[in-house]
């Protein structure tokens, strides 16, 4: 599904955010990417969306080589991936409903399908009653969940979530993670970038840990940290 091959990412200002990173995530897998603040997690997401291009190395998603992807093909690629952004990225002048529906509209879905599925997705993330609100009228956690609903709505083959519970209380977080697990059970590959120790420890899934841009750990059924450094 995802193949990151010796990827190095150096930003124009000189910051090296990723150093020779390589890993693969197979179809149907559930993986956490963890690491300190600034370790390069979000950079990895940007690369997988072709929001940025790696300085070195190759990225493959579904066997497609990113460096060979034409500009016209990028929208298609992004539509096939559901993404929850760390900074939400909601359209401020559209309602919650329209924000989620937008991901369907770009796939030219029918009105009927949109009218049926969007409320379902909103209910799934606990925002059934906020459909008509605008993003500025939502709390931080609510905005984050709108982002999640938008990422889920097209039943993507791959779902990548950057800190999907960063603004959520434990109960909401647990519910969201259960939801992601269900989605994964239905065949979707799920990658979660997070720093919530409890979640990682509870779920016992694969853990890829980055530190200062390098992969320092890649374990099946990992924990947030080795016991000794646990705080």
């Amino acid at each position: 599904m995802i193949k990151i091959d010796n990827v190095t990412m150096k930003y124009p200002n000189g910051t090296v955010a990723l150093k020779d990173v390589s890993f693969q995530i197979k179809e149907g897998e559930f993986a956490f990417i963890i690491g300190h603040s600034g370790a390069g997690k979000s950079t990895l997401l940007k690369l997988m969306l072709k929001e940025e291009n790696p300085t070195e190395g190759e990225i493959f998603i579904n066997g497609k080589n990113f460096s060979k992807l034409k500009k016209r093909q990028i929208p298609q690629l992004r539509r096939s991936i559901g993404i929850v952004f760390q900074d939400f990225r909601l359209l401020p002048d559209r309602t919650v409903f329209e924000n989620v529906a937008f991901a369907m509209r770009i796939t030219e879905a029918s009105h009927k399908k949109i009218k049926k599925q969007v409320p379902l997705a909103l209910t799934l993330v606990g925002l059934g009653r906020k459909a008509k609100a605008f993003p500025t009228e939502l709390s931080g956690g609510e905005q984050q969940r709108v982002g999640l609903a938008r990422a889920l709505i097209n039943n993507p083959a791959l779902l990548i979530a950057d800190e999907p519970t960063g603004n959520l209380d434990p109960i909401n977080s647990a519910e969201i993670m259960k939801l992601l697990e269900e989605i994964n059970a239905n065949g979707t590959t799920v990658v979660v970038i997070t720093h919530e120790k409890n979640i990682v420890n509870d779920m016992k899934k694969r853990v890829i840990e980055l530190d200062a841009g390098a992969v320092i750990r890649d374990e099946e059924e990992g924990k947030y940290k080795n016991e000794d450094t646990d705080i």
Partner: protein
Amino acid sequence: MKIRTFSYVAGQGLRNVYKNKLMSVISMGMVAVSLMVFGIFFVILVNINANVNSIKKDYQIQVYCDASLTYNDPLIGEIEKQIKDNPNVESCKKISKEEAFQVLKYEMLKDDSTILDNMSNAFLPISFTVKLKNLSIGVQTANEFESIPNVKRVNYPQKVMEAINATASWIYMGSLLIGGILALAAMFIISNTIRLTVFARKRDINIMKYVGASNAFVRLPFIIEGMVMGILGSAISFLVIGYSYMSIIGTINNQLTTMGIVSLKLLDFTEIAAVMFLCMVGIGAVVGVIGSAISVRKHLEV
């Protein structure tokens, strides 16, 4: 793009006009004001142009026959026929000896006309006052008149003719130049306004692209928004100018008449409305569409 997607996206464009009220009002205002400046000068220049043309039409050539020929001489008839057959002749009026005498006495000599007392009009020739269709080949036409038998002299002050021609072409070129400058200025202002309104929504454009929207999907609402704003703005401008013009045309024409300037007259608004409307709405709509398309393209590269 499917029909329903197109109609959704087009609807978004209309909705954006309403949603981004501040920006829409400003854009429309900018279109309206800059095209209003263009329109005012369009009106002024069209009028100057039309009046120069009517002055050109007023310009006359005097054809003097042999003074020995009298009013009803068949040779005079022959000359008249030949003048009227010339394709460049608009109209031709025969002047009798007596009329010429009166003109000399009261219009040329005026208070000094006592010198003509006791003189007969016999020494003056029969003449024809000829108006031309096309002044720019006037010299050639005058030469043709001169070669008609029994025509003694053709009065065509070449300098005046050339001056009128030159003035007319100056005004014509001036109109084109100023009209062009103003149209460019209007385009500059409109397209930059759109650029700023698009810039203010740069983040939204990026978000749409990150979620996987195609360029056409992102761009089309902006293009429709630009078109709507261009059309509405220019229509407002057209209406304001049209209304103002119609309110003042009467006053100005009266003024011109009382000032004795009968050869100058403002055109009726209906005579210029169609061209003006097309120019203005055309500029508005085209600049709106192209301005949006270009402004958005810049932010699509993510």
